[in-house]
């Protein structure tokens, strides 16, 4: 069955959609009250963020727009040292969308939210003209467990860690769009588990960021700008699977600039680097974590190449891949 404009009327069909899909899957006491706003109890210090998702195609190997919408906001909160607690979800649905697709997206959101330990406590649905597309906005709050994380806090001698293989979400989306058959799966995943493991080890995280659009290279350049330092990374340590490497060679892509949806970069003091690495590798989505490089003097990002040469790593220029998340 396809969605038409009357599902957005605010009347009976809207109510049917909300109850038979969203309430059914997101089901929790706060949402189920169906008041104008969710009433929440939180600790003193919270992180609060929002993100919108327009990825095409809506379903791709390793995930879908729903999973992405939960992970995106969960990960942004996590990167600020917060344990994500509550999300809102706003849906803009184009007429012509199959009801079964909306249901699949909602189911996926519910599963991901459960895994990430968050509740979807408020929402909104609108229907617009179009040809079968779903756009999702999620906002979320999380309770701060580690303060002082900032891109401006990196210091000379600190160590840079990356939680796993690069380029997988980017390559999965591109493969689906280009109808290339391969085994590449998006890395889309909630990263709260990594923060929890790092906290267990009492790692004094200086900076943490999920490696999304713009790729690793962009974040490294942000570090040099904000912390007034240099960065040196080792090409030999760059975590990239053989399949992604082959994909990049054929299409002229560089994993340093590709988007991920389940990878983070962390900067920690050198003395805690091994402990941080072990903590990451213990968590579900950090098994391939590596120590990639360190914070140095200077003001630019350099990579020591496999052959012993040096390469300057600049920002991503141009558009990257549109509608990747």
């Amino acid at each position: 069955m396809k969605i038409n404009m009357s599902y957005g009327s605010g009347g009976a069909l809207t109510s049917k959609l909300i109850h038979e899909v969203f309430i059914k899957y997101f089901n929790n006491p706060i949402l189920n009250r169906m008041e104008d706003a969710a009433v929440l109890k939180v600790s003193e210090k919270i992180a609060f963020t929002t993100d919108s998702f327009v990825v095409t195609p809506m379903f791709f190997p390793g995930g879908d727009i729903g999973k992405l919408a939960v992970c995106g906001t969960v990960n942004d909160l996590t990167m600020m040292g917060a344990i994500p607690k509550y999300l809102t979800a706003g849906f803009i649905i184009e007429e012509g969308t199959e009801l079964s697709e909306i249901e699949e997206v909602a189911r996926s959101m519910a599963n991901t939210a459960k895994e990430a330990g968050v509740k979807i406590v408020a929402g909104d649905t609108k229907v617009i003209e179009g040809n079968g597309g779903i756009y999702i906005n999620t906002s979320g709050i999380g309770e701060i467990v580690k303060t002082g994380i900032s891109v401006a806090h990196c210091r000379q001698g600190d160590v840079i860690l990356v939680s796993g293989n690069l380029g997988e979400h980017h390559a999965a989306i591109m493969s689906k769009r280009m109808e290339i058959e391969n085994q590449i799966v998006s890395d889309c995943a909630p990263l709260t588990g990594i923060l929890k493991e790092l906290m267990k080890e009492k790692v004094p995280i200086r900076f943490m960021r999920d490696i999304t659009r713009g790729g690793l290279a962009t974040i490294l350049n942000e570090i040099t700008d904000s912390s007034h330092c240099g960065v040196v990374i080792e090409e030999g340590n760059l975590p990239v699977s053989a399949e992604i490497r082959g994909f990049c060679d054929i299409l002229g892509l560089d994993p340093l600039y590709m988007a991920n949806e389940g990878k983070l970069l962390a900067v920690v003091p050198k003395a805690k680097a091994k402990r941080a690495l072990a903590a990451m590798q213990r968590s579900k989505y950090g098994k391939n974590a590596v120590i990639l490089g360190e914070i140095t003097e200077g003001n630019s990002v350099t990579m020591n190449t496999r052959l012993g040469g040096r390469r300057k790593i600049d920002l991503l220029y141009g558009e990257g891949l549109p509608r990747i998340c």
Partner: protein
Amino acid sequence: MITLEQVIKELGSYDGRPIKIMEVCGTHTSSIFKHGIRSLISPKLELISGPGCPVCVTSALYIDKLVEYSLMEKHCVLTFADMLKVKGTTMSLTEAKAVGGKVRMLYSPLSAIKLAKEEPDTQFIIAAVGFETTTPIYALIMEEVIKSNINNIRLLTSMKTILPALTYICDNEKGIDAFLCPGHVSVITGSRIYEELVMKYQKPFVIAGFEGEHILGAVYEIVQQITEGSFHTKNLYPSVVSVEGNKKAQELVEEYFEEVDDDWREIGRIPSSGLRLREKYHSYDAGSSFAASQMDSPKGCRCRDVVLGRIHPVDCPLFHKVCTPMNAIGPCMVSTEGACGIWYKNGGKNQ
């Protein structure tokens, strides 16, 4: 047998006469940055980019024609990604798209056929731009179009061949001592095509792949040939490049296309350097033009000198100041294979 360490050591400490090596292909230019090759070799060994970016040498009037087609009712332009951002005299295909032009990305030849079948009322115009590596793809499309009796695909061609351009450079640009030949093009053409250039110009022509080791090996080979004063074609990419090349691809191209004198943006007319549809397939041509169309470069832009290997992109007064990928003045800054764009993205101003 010499090891990689020895090659790096010798190239790093090279102190003979300065040698200027032209890498013809943009993928090599990227790879030189990617592997930090310049930081490994002596400053006396200069690597300079050449004319090997098909988009950079495509005439602005050709792009105008694509833009015009994209804006025509019931027409749609199919193109590989690189052509989207290059400006014609008025706008680029991306800009045309923003004002309602119909432009779609071509990912594979068969996707064009599929589209044409799905939308029989749309006239598809394929932007057939490229060197020897891509021309077989257009020949393949032609074969499929004829086999499936498709009548809503036509080609607007601006296909070029690299050998006449290398000949032009050897004749007119005296400063180039050796050539790092394009690996992908050589897969199709074979290594044989460089023989006559070696004979005539007495310079090394070395074919290499795109890994750092390949490029270092090629530079080492060039240094050896120049030191010994004995020049020949050397194929260091034998796993995929043969003497004769890909016969099947060559035959396919031969069936549909023929040589024509063609205009290169920034360079001018080069004899027998273009390909057009043969007479019997003219009904599939969307009005391709091979007339001289030289236009003045934008003021201050030195793309011509970049394409001909006279200067590095950083030597252009506009580079990084007014000309950036976000606001490209010349074509070499736009394309992913253009030397200026590659230098810019790799922080070339500091190299």
